[in-house]
Every structure is written in C-alpha cells, then in structure tokens.
C-alpha cells in the first residue's frame, strides 16, 4: 500500500506525493482535509456571530466586522466546506462503486482540487489584507460593487477560481459515470449514491456558468470601471440577483442530492434490505434536479417581479415537495420489515429524517409567496436553510464519513465518540435553529448585527447561542475522534458493514489501481446479489493483465499557483499599475504549465501482470 511506503519515506515524500497525486482516493483525502480546515474557520465565524447575538445591544464585535463575519461564514460554509466535502465523497466512492480504476480525467481531477484550494485561500487571505468581504454571501449589488476596500474583490476572484475547479470536477464525474462503469452495470443498476452524483454533476455543469458570468460582470464593475450593476449609469442590480440565484438555487440541490445518495446507501445497508422503490428514487432525483432550475425566483418574491411571476414560481417551488416526499417515504419503507442496526452512520440517517422533514415543511411554507413576504430575509429563512443544509447536507456528510471512513483510511471511527458527537450536535442543532423560526416571525431580520432590548427577542437568541455551543462541542468530539482513530483505531477488513455495493469487494483502503480485475455486475446491489448466491466476491469480467495507470504530475498545482498569484495582481492593479507585473507573471506560470502539459507526451505507466500476481501489486 502506497501510504505505508510513503510513511517510510518521510514527510517530504508524503508531501510531494500529495502535491503531485492524480489518484482519486488521495484527492478525496485532500478535499476532505481542505474542507475540514475551512469548516473550522466557518464554524469559528458562526460562534462569534452567536456570541454577538447572545444578548440585546451587545458590542462583542463591531457592526462592520459582523458583516464580514456573516459574509465569510456563508461563503466559506457553502463553497469551501460543503462543496469540498461533497467532492471528497465523489472522489472516494464513485469510481469504486462503478468498478473503475480512476476517474476519466485524473489530471483534471487534481487540477479541480488545487483550484478549489487556491480560491479558498484567496478568499480567506482577505482577513489578513485589510478586511473580508462584507456584502453577504449573496453579494447583492450595489452594496457589493460599492463596498470600500478590497474585501469583495477577494470574494469575486476566490469564487471565480474555485468555481472553475468545481466545473472541471462536475464534467469529470459526468464523463466518468457515463463511460467507466464496469461491464453489466447499466444505468438502472447504479447505486443510488452514484446516481445522485451523476445528477449533481449535471447541475454543476448548468448552474456554475451562471455564477461565472455574474462574477465576471462584478469583477469588471469593481476592477475595470464598467457599470453592469450601476443604476446611475443605466445598469441594473436585479440582473445580479437573477444570475446569482439561477446558480444559487441549483447549488442547494448540488449539495443536498449527494446527501440523499448517502442516506440511500446507509439506510439499506443498516436495514439489511434493498432500497425501497429504487426506480422511483432515481426518477425523483432527476426530477428534483430538473425542477431545481425552475424555481430560482422564489428567493426574489419581494423584489417586485409582479404577481404573475411570483405565483408561477410559488407553484413550481411547491411541486418540488412531491419528489422529495417520495424519497422520505421510500426511506421509511426501506426500513419497514428490515433489521435495523443503529450504528453511528445509521444514527445520523435516523436523525436526518425528522430534521429534513421539518426543513422541507418550512420550504413549502416559504413557497407560498404571500406568506414569504413575512419570512423573506428574516430569521425564519435562516432557520429554514440551516435545517436543510445542516440537517440535510451536514448530517449526510457525518453519516457518510462514519460509513466510508474504513474504506478511505482502513480504520473504523470510534462508535462511542461518534454517538456522542451525534447526540450533542443533534440536540444543539435543534436548540439553535428551531427557535429561530419564531424569532423571524417576531420581527427579527436576518444579518442583523444586534437587536434592541424590549423587542421580545432576548430569550430566543440566548437559547439559540446555547445550542450553538453544544453543536461546537459535538464537532470538537468528532475531530478528536479522527485523531484518536488515526492513532488507535482498529484495522478493518474489506467489508466491515456487510455492504451491498462494489466498494466493499476490495481492500480497505483500496490498492492504487482499485480492482485487480474489473468485476462483472449482475444486478443492483452487485455485492449483495453475489452474497445471496453464496459467492464471496464478484466474478471478474476480464483476465488478469497489465493495468494502465496515469502518472503523477505537479502541473495542476503549478497552474493553480499561477492563478493564485495572478489574483493578487488583478485585485491590487486598481491601486497601483505596477501590480500588473504580478498579474502577468502569475498568468505566465499558468499558461506555461498548460503549454508543458500540451506538448509533453505522458502515456502513464503500467502495473505488470507479474507484480499483480505476486501479491499487492506494488
């Protein structure tokens, strides 16, 4: 196993290994730890926000700094915590679930990660360089285009670069899932997690370009004096809102669909039953993805689009509840008649069902346009989207980490610590956010630095802050669990959970080439099918032969480094034209690396048959 060898080679070798890797399993590790790092930052920002709101008229932080915190909390959590976690899962699991040896474009896969990291570091560099963006994660113009300092420039460049990485990743997984499934794995035999990643990748492909366009317009407004969003010069701020939400609403489904996929793996495994209504689940996923593009204006009911637009978008939004409801009932009936084992992963799934149902309930309530005139931009909305994004996406990520950790790292996360994390996080979560529905209806707008005493908002905010501390405790226990597991965790076999899908047929962690021989898939839940017929493993679909694998490359890192450097040139050339040197220098590094990539042939390498026969192939 390569990790074991790397350990013998020392820290420098491990670092070089990860800087140059194109192996989807190692890229998953990178996404996971990158996302974890930003998750801690975003969490600290959240805690400062809740401390500021613990009592009325508090001045723990200043008003301007508070706006930076809320902007960075939202932006970090969506783009640099939730997204990389999803990408970590895609990388760790999808190629294994479809019986592939890597993704279709391993080089691009690495490039996608390094672009994400560059974007996240650019955004967070703003803290150290004169102030973070302060116009909200939605960055509505003209507040964002007129915001003083460079904060919003960091937002624009950071998101643009990481967005390119996301788009690359989405295309990569589309191609991978279309082309690289093992023989016999038809579309309707794909595990549901792979299905959700397939739909999510398609959503990325269509949604992110809208954000790219919006960010380009904003970049030109801020850095080069154009006026797309400046009403005084004939521009229009509503165009930004449309572009942002044409991206922003599908983004919600980009995050939640993979979580649905996780639960559709975890619940069958720990109920020992196949997923109830698999076909309906697939169609519900596709339908949610499709409808997700038809509803963006429900974020804009109060913008003044008129009653016809509001009514159409209200009804379209309500329609999404139908496929979502189908999913909830299918999960319930998967458990019905099963044999439920309450492991930590299953506990997160069991916590998810009522929590997400509540989030879906408030989703339908928000869809009612006239009721939304009250909810819009109040704490009710804050409560709602935390119920779906934390209660859906983050619960899903916790479930998946406990479920797939043994496959990714070869060791089990500690179950006792896992359950402690679940209970504190789950109770803390509801304590924090349930009360916020009422705070919103009682007249508390969102993004509010403080509130005056005597408005009936004091107790609710106090309860909310107490809950936030409980959540933070749960997260700390989880990080402790990760460290504890790395040191003391017990090694596991191929299939610690009695799994149903292909990833459980190979070693934990899998060898560099995943499958010595590509398996032959004979049905949905391919491994389960074989288990039921008394076979230990799948039949191979090919004779043992040389395996062709891609070579490592430092170029993805270099390309991203160039863009990272160029961003500072873009941002600071406004103040001083000499920064153009940095801009051009950075772009030369990127284009140089692209040139090298284009002209230098790289045919990859082969792992020879003889080595494979000898044992672990290394």
């Amino acid at each position, binding site marked *: 196993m390569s990790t074991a060898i790397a350990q013998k080679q020392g820290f420098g070798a491990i670092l070089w290994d990860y800087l140059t890797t194109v192996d989807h399993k190692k890229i998953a590790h990178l996404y996971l730890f990158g996302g974890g790092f930003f998750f801690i930052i975003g969490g600290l920002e959240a805690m400062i926000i809740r401390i500021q709101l613990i009592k009325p008229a508090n001045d723990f932080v200043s008003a301007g700094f508070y706006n930076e915190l809320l902007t960075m909390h939202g932006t970090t959590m969506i783009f640099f915590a939730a997204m990389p976690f999803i990408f970590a899962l895609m990388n760790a699991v999808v190629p294994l679930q479809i019986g592939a040896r890597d993704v279709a474009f391993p080089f691009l896969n690495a490039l996608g990660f390094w672009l994400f990291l560059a974007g996240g570091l650019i955004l967070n560099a703003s803290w150290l360089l004169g102030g973070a963006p302060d116009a909200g994660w939605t960055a509505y113009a003209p507040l964002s285009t007129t915001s003083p300092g460079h904060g919003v420039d960091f937002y624009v460049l950071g998101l643009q670069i990481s967005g390119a990485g996301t788009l690359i990743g989405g295309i990569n997984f589309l191609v991978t899932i279309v082309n690289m499934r093992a023989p016999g794995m038809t579309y309707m035999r794909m595990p549901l997690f792979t299905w959700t990643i397939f739909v999510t990748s398609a959503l990325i492909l269509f949604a992110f370009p809208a954000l790219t366009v919006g960010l380009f317009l904003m970049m030109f407004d801020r850095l080069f004096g154009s006026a797309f969003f400046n009403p005084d010069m004939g521009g229009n701020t509503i165009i930004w809102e449309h572009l942002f939400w044409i991206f922003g609403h599908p983004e919600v489904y980009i995050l939640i669909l993979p979580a649905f996929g996780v639960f559709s793996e975890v619940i069958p495994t720990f109920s020992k039953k196949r997923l109830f209504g698999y076909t309906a689940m697939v169609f519900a996923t596709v339908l949610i993805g499709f409808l997700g593009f038809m509803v963006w204006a429900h974020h804009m009911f109060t913008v003044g689009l008129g*009653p016809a637009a509001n009514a159409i978008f209200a009804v379209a939004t309500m329609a999404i509840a139908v496929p979502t409801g189908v999913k909830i009932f299918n999960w319930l009936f998967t458990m019905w008649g099963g044999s439920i084992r309450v492991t930590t992963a299953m506990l997160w799934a069991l916590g998810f069902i009522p929590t997400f149902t509540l989030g879906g309930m408030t989703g339908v309530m928000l869809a009612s346009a006239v009721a939304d005139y009250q909810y819009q931009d109040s704490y009710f909305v804050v409560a709602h989207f935390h119920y779906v994004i934390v209660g859906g996406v983050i619960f899903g990520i916790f479930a998946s980490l406990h479920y797939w950790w043994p496959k990714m790292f070869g060791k089990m996360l500690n179950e006792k610590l896992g359950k402690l994390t679940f209970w504190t996080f789950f109770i803390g979560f509801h304590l924090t956010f349930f009360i916020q529905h009422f705070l919103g209806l009682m007249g508390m707008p969102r993004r509010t630095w403080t509130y005056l005493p005597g408005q009936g908002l004091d107790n609710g905010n106090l309860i909310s802050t107490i809950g936030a501390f409980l959540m933070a405790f749960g997260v700390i226990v989880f990080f402790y669990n990760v460290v504890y597991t790395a040191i003391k965790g017990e090694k596991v076999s191929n299939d610690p959970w009695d799994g149903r899908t292909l990833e459980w047929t190979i070693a934990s962690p899998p060898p560099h080439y995943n499958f010595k021989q590509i398996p032959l898939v004979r049905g949905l839940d391919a491994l389960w099918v074989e288990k039921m017929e008394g076979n230990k493993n799948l039949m191979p679909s090919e004779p043992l032969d040389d395996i062709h694998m891609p070579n490592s490359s430092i170029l993805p890192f270099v390309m991203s480094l160039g863009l990272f450097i160029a961003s500072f040139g873009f941002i600071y050339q406004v103040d001083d034209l000499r920064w153009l040197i940095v801009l051009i220098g950075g772009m030369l590094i990127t284009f140089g690396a692209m040139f090298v990539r284009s002209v230098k042939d790289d045919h990859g390498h082969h792992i020879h048959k003889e080595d494979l026969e000898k044992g672990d192939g290394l």
Partner: protein
Amino acid sequence: MKGWMGKFRVLFILGSTALVLSGCGLENLTALDPKGYGAQVSLDLIILSIVIMVFVFLVVMVIYTFVFFRFRQKKGQEDVIPKQVEGNKVLEVIWTVIPIILLLILAVPTVTATFDLAEGQPEGSDLLNVNVTGNQYWWNFSYDDLDVQTSQDLYIPTGERVYIDMKSSDVIHSFWLPSISGKMDVNPENENTMFIEAQEEGVYWGKCAELCGPSHSLMDFRVVAVSPDEFDQWVTDMKNVDPEAEPETASAQEGKQLFSDKGCISCHALGSSPTAIGPNLTSFGSRTKFAGILDPTKENLVDWIMDPESIKPGNKMTGNYKEVTEEEASKIADYLLQLEPSEITPEDAESE
C-alpha cells in the same frame, strides 16, 4: 380568507406561546399578531401551510416511530435476512398523489392572495400615496400630493389603503412592517409599489430587511396610524409650518443659529422642501425615536449630535458638519426638541 381559520389561529398562538417563553413577540412588531390587511392575509396562509405540513410531519413521524421500534434488530437475529422488497406501486402512487392534493389546497389561496396584495390603485381614487426613499440608514417619506415631507415616522390614516411607492437612493433596502404587511424591496433602479392598511390606531415598528451596510440592523422606522380626522389635522398642521419661526427660549434661539452655522441646514430640511440629503426635521420634537433607535431624550440627542459614528456606524452624517462642543450640541438639541408643529403626535395613536 379572513376569519375562517380563527380557531386554528387561537391554537397556533397558544402553541407558540408554550414554545417561546416570551409569547409571540412584541405587540406591533410581531407578524404573529397582525394589525393590518397584508399581515392578516400572510398569517392566514402561514397557518394554513402549517396545518397541512404538521399533518404530513405527523404521518411521517408515526411511520418512523413504528418502524424504528418494530424493526430494530433484536438479539440473536443478527443472521436473519429480511425479505428484499423492490417497491410497491400502490403505496408509491398514494404518496405521490396525496401530497399533490395537499399542495393544491395551499397553491390556490397562495395564487389568489398574491394577486390580491398586488392590486393597484383604482383609477381616479383619492387614496393616499407616499413616496418612500430608502437611504443608508434612514427613511424619507414624501406626501407629494399633499406637499408634506417627513422622515423616520410615517403617519397614515387607519382603515384605508395607503399606497407606498418605494425607491432607494443608494443600495437595496427592504421595507418591512411585520404587524401591518409583509415586506418589499426598495431598489435603486425602479419604483416598487405596495399598499399598507392599518386596522387599528397605533405606533408600528418597521425595519430594513435587506443587508445595506454596517448599520443595517439599526435602520428602524415607525408607522404612526391615526384616525382619518387626526390625520387630516396633522396634514394641515404640517402644511402650515413656518420653517423660519423663532423659538421661544434663548437657548433654542441660539440653537437655531448654530443649526445653520454648523452646516446642519445644508442637509436637513425643515418644512416641505423636498431636499432630502439627510432626514427632514420638521416635526423632530414628536419623533418616536431619535436616529431610528434612541429613546427620545435630550441626553441621547446631544450624544448623537456629538458623535453619530459611535451610535450608527457608517452613517453619512459623520464628518459632514463643523465640530460642535457639548454646550453647542445642547443648544441645537433645545432647538430641535421644540419642533412640534402638530398637535397630533404618536401619543394620540398609542392612547387608543
């Protein structure tokens, strides 16, 4: 729509009281105790949707609880393989069709109400129109037809629709009056119109609901709803204001001089002048709050004049007038506090 869900409302309010120790919020601020037409229509829909959704939630939870306790793995059953069920057409059709019906029950009144609240002003009606301008971080109210200007406190007559035409002078704001109506965004490029209708006299809290800069959370305003007669009286009084009138006390007279010497007057209009760089101060002495958030005491006013930045970060007044000593600020305060041109004050609305 009105009234037919009265019983649900009682249940709902009782329920939320139990949940939230502080009841359902402050009267005249909370959206849970509507005092105006728009807020009433919204609450009816909120309650309808909660009733439908709680029903769905209960169904889910009943199945969930049953499944969890009934089908949890028991000791000695570790090797039992449950029957692998593919699905069930009838069940799947049921849980597709029933939600569709439930959503239709919600969709129809939603669409009706959306068009109801967007209803324009009838041709030739003499309903009141107010131009609302959102500014960082204060509100200007201009009664164009009546030739009256005011800021921060919006006076309206009860029992009739008042059409407010909103526009922003800088960034996007949002005009939210939870007890009277929902909210609508105040955009810089186009005028948005909605009507508000207060059913009872009272002073209602309004807030800016769209992030607009550091002092976004301090951009409060008030709506003072008085009887139509009192409103007419207020309009008459406001029209008859003499902006040049000499105050009675010596201190206030000096304050008036300082008001122009220190440059206050170049932004703050008195009377019906449409200049609105800063809030119109015609009836400053009757304000419900100073700067939107401070209790109306002289002490607070002096603090504000001396150092507005510490009270409302990012405001546009800071640094745009000559420095004042505490003594000068006190005199300016004396001048401003006696600007009470109308007998109709917020107390008239509150005393009802």
